[in-house]
């Protein structure tokens, strides 16, 4: 066969990539994927539910557990509502690894951000991301590739941090390649130097900056800037510290990352106590008008 059409090229590539799973999982579509693996949508015939099956694109050539297996192990250790649970894992006849996980239905954070979503909702989503990442850090896992494309928001406000394939869990790395995404990687990660939880804090700062759009308030911009400071020592040292500052901002309290001016403080205090201030003002004005009317 000398000529293969573009359509046949696509079909042949898909055919060669198609995973040969056992009868339990019937593949119904492709959800997406990246350099490491492809995620298929499948129906679990035993439990009668839809699941996601992630399959490595190629078997590891050096006989080691590949990143996909490592990701499955990490996910199985991280039992948190913001982290996708793993149901099953195994080996395909052609040597590729796969694991089965909950099928998350929703939109990626970058897709959410492209819509006009109120700031309060955006910050609520971000706070849920922080909870999941803080949980991972507490279990010694650093994600290393946090970005809006790796965060899924469900229809009921639930948030899932996805793609833990390059996470660092204290064990030796499968390879020494630089991992992460430009713009979300701190300088130490770009230099392939050892990283710790503060690398994720840098990425979270970048996510927050994108989440807030072009004209964030100064306090929020300062939080994002502190989180992604080029010097790890000058970032928030823990996700909890970052979360606390975001929470203060949401509750109109002063944040540690920003020293506000007298005017800004007045405006913030006014907005925080807007209703009681307006009530008192209304009472004072009414009282004044009443007294004036009575000629007192």
């Amino acid at each position, binding site marked *: 066969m000398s000529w293969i059409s573009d359509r046949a090229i696509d079909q042949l590539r898909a*055919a060669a990539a198609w995973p040969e799973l056992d009868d339990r999982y019937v593949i119904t579509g492709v959800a997406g994927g990246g*350099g490491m693996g492809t995620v298929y949508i499948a129906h679990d015939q035993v439990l009668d539910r839809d699941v996601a099956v992630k399959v490595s*694109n190629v078997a590891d050539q050096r006989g080691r557990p590949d990143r996909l297996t490592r990701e499955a192990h990490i996910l199985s250790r991280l039992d948190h509502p913001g982290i996708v649970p793993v149901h099953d894992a195994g080996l395909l006849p052609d040597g590729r690894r796969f694991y089965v996980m909950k099928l998350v239905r929703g939109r990626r954070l970058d897709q959410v951000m492209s819509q006009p979503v109120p700031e309060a909702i955006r910050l609520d989503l971000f706070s849920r991301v922080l909870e999941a990442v803080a949980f991972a850090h507490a279990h010694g896992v650093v994600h290393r590739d946090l970005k809006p494309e790796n965060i899924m928001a469900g229809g009921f406000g639930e948030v899932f941090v996805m793609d833990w394939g390059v996470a660092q869990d204290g064990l030796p790395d499968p390879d020494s390649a630089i991992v992460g995404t430009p713009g979300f990687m701190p300088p130490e990660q770009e230099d392939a130097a050892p990283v710790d939880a503060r690398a994720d804090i840098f990425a979270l700062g970048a996510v927050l900056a994108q989440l807030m759009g072009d004209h964030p308030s100064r306090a929020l911009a300062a939080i994002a800037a502190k989180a992604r400071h080029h010097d790890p020592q000058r970032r928030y040292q823990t996700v909890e510290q970052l979360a606390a500052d975001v929470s203060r901002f949401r509750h109109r309290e002063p944040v540690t990352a920003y020293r506000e001016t007298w005017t800004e403080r007045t405006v913030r205090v006014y907005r925080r106590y807007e209703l009681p201030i307006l009530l008192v003002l209304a009472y004072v004005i009414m009282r004044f008008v009443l007294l004036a009317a009575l000629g007192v």
Partner: protein
Amino acid sequence: MPFPATRLSVVERTRSGDEETRRLAWATIIEAYWKPVYKYLRLKWSLDPDAAADLTQEFFTTTLEKEIVERFDPTRARFRTYLRICLDGFASNARKAERRQKRGGDVVQVPLDFRTAEGEMARHEGSVPADVDDLFYREWVRALLARGVADLRLWAEQSGRLSMFEVFARYDLADDGEGRPTYAALARDLGLTTATVTNHLAAIRRQFRQLLLEQLRELTASDQEFESEAARLFGSRALDAGDDRR
């Protein structure tokens, strides 16, 4: 077998002390790359068919003469990327010098059927892609898959599995624009059960993947390059066509 047994890559074999090994390695490289090179010259460098054909011949002769491939450093680039960069430099120099003389000497004798390549270009579904660099990759994939299908047919003939290949050809090679047949329709046409069609496809796809991986192993120079090329070939971008059997 989880993955293809390690073979010496063609790049390594071009450095062999044995002349026949070197010749075969060059033949493999040329077979995999001549069409991508020709079409790339036609589209990116806007050469007419004759000029592109001359330059394609000359490129492989020159790469041989100047030992460009022998200088390839797998730690710095993929072989495919390296070859395309060499091609750009070569085409640029050729344009500047406006030289078109034929070279003789140590030319590897691989028949290059430019008329066929030209006919293929006329059959492109779309016009020239916006990113002609992608064209080089796509043509390389096309050549890879074409050889994979030929190898698969040979395997089916030699192992008495032609009916399996027939299922594969009718389903995975179908490109008549009317969509692929369902498994049930295929089973009816070929006098098989639907379960047999399913099993045939699973088995022959596994073999096809194996043959493609063996080719990739041959055409790449390191484990990392092999994994990277395989990931791109089989990655999610390849899967839009999916499998619509159900």
